[in-house]
């Protein structure tokens, strides 16, 4: 079996209760469940944007508190639900993370633009001139600029229309495979879960209801709760 990257043991935080699961190398975990279930709360525990009230989170088999926080957030990259771009240009956004660690070369900008399928001449465009979909791509590229090993995505396509969603999904899958990323992603779309995910974690009111292979979960749910959720969505 591949190496465990993250282990959550009996984690409690706000609504979350006794969350236990393991995220292995190159897993693509889909976290899903009703609104308010605690999905975003859970995602923020992976890079210490938030901390558990009880329980432990292990990163590479070591308690997560033992890591330097900026370095942890650099290698466990989070893409927020809204792009929240920084002022001025696309390039300024791409440079932001790497510059914090003195690790930026201009050459990387072009490759990042390529990953997220944006034209190179957008680099010097002001972020105010971008469409919603383009902003989302820049936000993704900005996180990738840090060369993370783990990618956390909080509904990365919720603000986009269908055409944009499909295009971003393709880019995502391509760059996840190319960079051998381990992924934890929150999504409301079960189609997207199927296309991107390898594993699934279904939570309801802060509790893990089902955890396993994503196709297994979506096609043969074991619990009444998940059956009902899938029926509704």
């Amino acid at each position, binding site marked *: 079996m591949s190496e465990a990257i993250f282990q959550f043991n009996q984690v409690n935080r706000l609504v979350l209760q006794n969350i236990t699961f393991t995220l292995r190398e190159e897993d693509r975990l889909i976290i899903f469940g009703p609104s308010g279930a605690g999905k975003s709360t859970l995602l923020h525990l992976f890079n210490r944007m938030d901390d558990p009230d009880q329980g432990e989170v292990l990163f590479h088999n070591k308690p997560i508190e033992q890591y330097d926080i900026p370095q942890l*957030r650099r290698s466990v990259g989070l893409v927020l639900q809204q792009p929240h771009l*920084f002022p001025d240009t696309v390039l300024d956004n791409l440079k932001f993370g790497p510059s914090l660690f003195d690790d930026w070369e201009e050459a990387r900008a072009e490759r990042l633009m390529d990953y997220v399928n944006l034209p190179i001449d957008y680099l010097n465009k002001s972020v105010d001139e971008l469409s919603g979909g383009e902003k989302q791509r820049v936000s993704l590229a900005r996180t990738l600029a840090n060369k993370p090993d783990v990618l956390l995505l909080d509904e990365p396509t919720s603000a986009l229309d269908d055409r944009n969603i499909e295009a971003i999904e393709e880019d995502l899958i391509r760059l996840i495979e190319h960079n051998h990323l381990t992924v934890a992603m929150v999504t409301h779309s079960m189609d997207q879960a199927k296309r991107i995910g390898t594993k699934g974690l279904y939570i309801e009111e802060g509790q893990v209801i089902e955890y396993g292979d994503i196709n297994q979960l979506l096609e043969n749910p074991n619990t009444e709760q998940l059956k009902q959720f899938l029926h509704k969505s």
Partner: protein
Amino acid sequence: MERDIPTYSLLLLIVFVMIPFTIAYIYQLGLKKEIIWSTVRGTLQLFLIGLILTYLFDLPPLVGIPIMLSVMILVATFHARKKGKELPYIFITILVGLIGVEIIVLSMWLGFGMISFTPEEVIPMSGMVIGNSMVAMGLALERLKSEFEQNRGKLLAALSLGATPKHAAHMSIKKTLNAALIPNIDQLKTIGLVQLPGMMTGLILGGVAPIIAIKYQLVISISIFSSVSLSAIFISMVMYRFFFNKQMQLLNLQDIKKNG
């Protein structure tokens, strides 16, 4: 010969107060009480200060000046604190800031022989510096809070990219300082053109030659400008930290006090 305004003509000021009062009455602005109260209060305050000043000016400078400065700084601190009551250590921080600013300007004035250590010179000059610093700190605090409120998303994004609180807050602090300092920069630019500054007006009315009045004005304008900048920078630099916890996580305004 010193100039004075006869008391009976002071009473005529009531006519001036009646103008806004009448307007408030006609348009039912609901400010009638406010206008009367603030006029009465302002008048009483000024006469009271006049009496106290007369008394303190007669004390030896080494006694009177520290007393008067302490009172001014304390009042200013109580006032500016209101703008940041959600923040921990707000009182002590403003107090330290104002004392620091006063020590710096006073050493400069006295050290370079710009003014002499007499209440007549130290008290009004310090009053202007402390008053303006107080306003600047209040402005900076209000702005800092609204910047953090408005830019939550960007701050979260910066932190999640590995920024330290200092890095993440850099943009907000920059905007805060801009907002707090721009009125002062504008004032410095148009000084003497748009309005004759208060101190100069006062000195000229008091019979001092304009060229001497200008020298004093220059000293006070530049002192105010520096101390206002210093105050705003100081309060922002100390206070932004409290918007984060030790784990480099962004706090809500209502959670800050608990954490601090």
